């Protein structure tokens, strides 16, 4: 019986842009158990609802996480809109959809880069981030911020996108699609990349359901769950298929995310073609929210919940967020068991961890 050793992983670690701590129990080179401890980025921002009114909370909700910032703001706004029974203008719905897909593009590209860095492929890392800059440029052009867009308001969006900008956004999205082809080819067909990804971090279909995985992690285990299909914002009018893979391993997760990038380009194209011409992009909310609502939406990392409860005053009673990485932590611990020690950074990356979201 080999002796067990405990190796601490994190909170400060070269592959992690954010702090998370894992206690890895090793037998020789094999991980037999992993005990995650979180809380390094816990800010307690949900409690800010007591101090800030429901309009100001949009800014706080956007800062849950800098990567999917737009979708956090939108999730909160949609939840409050449902409570207040506001039907936002159609154009605003389409604008939200376009920005959502741009966030997805930049988030997935960021992750692909970090993954390439995780297995030591620096050139691929740089290439992914080079493509990502074009996406950020479009976000900056239309909203004014590279990461924190701050265009969502309860009742719609603050800024409109002019027809010229829409044309440019479409061109950039199509260009991203073109430039992605060789990158996708390297990720999916390169011998060295495949030897690193195939068969690592296996999560079977049954385990994925039992452990409550979400997002690309769930879809890579062959389960077609995508909350965009529930038709929030303008997704109901857009034609797309849920991408799944039956590989159940790291390769499957890369495959799903790469196909989603191409899908996002297609959704942006469709949304820009279908966007209705109108001046109206915002309805000013009247009164204060009273009642409760649970909003679910599909973030780049998976399904996120936004629960709001209003009591009729300008401050909400409760705001609760459950983010995708939290759901994926249990599957992560499961995939780590039995993995070689050298694979740990890679496996941590394959769930696309966003610790800021998880701990809020």
């Amino acid at each position, binding site marked *: 019986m080999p002796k067990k050793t405990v190796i601490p992983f994190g909170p400060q670690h070269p592959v992690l*842009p954010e702090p998370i701590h894992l206690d890895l129990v090793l037998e020789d080179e094999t991980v037999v158990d992993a005990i995650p401890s979180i809380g390094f980025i816990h800010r307690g921002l949900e409690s800010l609802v007591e101090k800030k009114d429901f309009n100001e909370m949009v800014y706080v909700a956007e800062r849950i996480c800098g990567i999917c910032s737009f979708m956090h703001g939108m999730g909160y706004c949609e939840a409050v809109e449902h409570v207040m029974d506001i039907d936002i203008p159609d154009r605003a719905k389409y604008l939200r959809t376009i920005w959502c897909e741009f966030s997805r593009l930049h988030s997935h590209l960021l992750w692909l880069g970090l993954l390439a860095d995780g297995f030591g492929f620096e050139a691929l890392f740089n290439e992914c981030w080079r493509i990502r800059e074009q996406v950020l440029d479009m976000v900056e052009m239309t909203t004014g911020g590279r990461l924190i867009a701050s265009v969502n308001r309860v009742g719609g969006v603050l800024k409109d996108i002019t027809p010229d900008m829409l044309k440019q956004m479409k061109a950039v999205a199509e260009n991203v699609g073109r430039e992605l082809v060789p990158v996708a080819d390297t990720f999916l067909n390169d011998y060295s990349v495949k030897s690193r990804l195939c068969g690592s971090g296996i999560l079977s279909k049954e385990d994925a359901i039992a452990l409550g995985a979400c997002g690309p992690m769930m879809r890579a285990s062959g389960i077609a769950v995508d909350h965009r299909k529930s038709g929030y914002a303008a997704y109901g009018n857009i034609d797309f298929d849920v991408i799944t893979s039956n590989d159940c391993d790291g390769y499957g997760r890369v495959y799903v995310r790469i196909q989603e990038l191409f899908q996002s380009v297609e959704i942006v194209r469709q949304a820009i073609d279908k966007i209705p011409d109108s001046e109206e992009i915002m309805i000013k909310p009247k009164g204060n929210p009273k009642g409760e609502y649970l909003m679910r939406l599909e973030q780049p990392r998976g399904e996120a919940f936004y629960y709001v409860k209003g009591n009729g005053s300008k401050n909400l009673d409760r705001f609760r967020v459950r983010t995708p990485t939290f759901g994926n932590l249990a599957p992560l611990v499961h995939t780590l068991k039995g993995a070689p020690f050298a694979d740990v950074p890679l496996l941590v990356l394959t769930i696309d961890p966003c610790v800021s979201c998880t701990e809020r």
Partner: protein
Amino acid sequence: MKSFHKSPWLLHYDASSCNGCDIEVLACTMPRYDVERFGIINTGNPMHADIFCVTGGVNEQNAPVVKQIYDQIPEPKVVVAVGTCACTGGVFKECYNILGGVDKVIPVDIYVPGCAARPESIIDGVVKALALYQEKHDKMVKEGRGLPEGE
């Protein structure tokens, strides 16, 4: 010691930020901004680092980690607080768990504002940190604690 001035190594740590500034710090090393052409390298080891970029408002659990990393960086060192949260606590200032600014935990030399701080301003902050680094180094030499330049 010229080599330090020409090639400062940078350590980045997320002390309870929203991730936005962290991504921008990483974006600095990417082809668009490419700070590596100035010799700035993003390292993961505190013992190799010269400049410490901290983002976020530091919470109770993270404070000892930040302190520990700071202690591990060899002298001379420059601390750059990246982003509004790292400067003052920002939007999270009123949160129960946030100490409010990196300077509550470790001494900070350069403050880079912005939410999220733009790569240009982060690079500007790091360049300012270089001058300070030289100053600190010269002071150490004067006190007989470091090697003079060229040795």
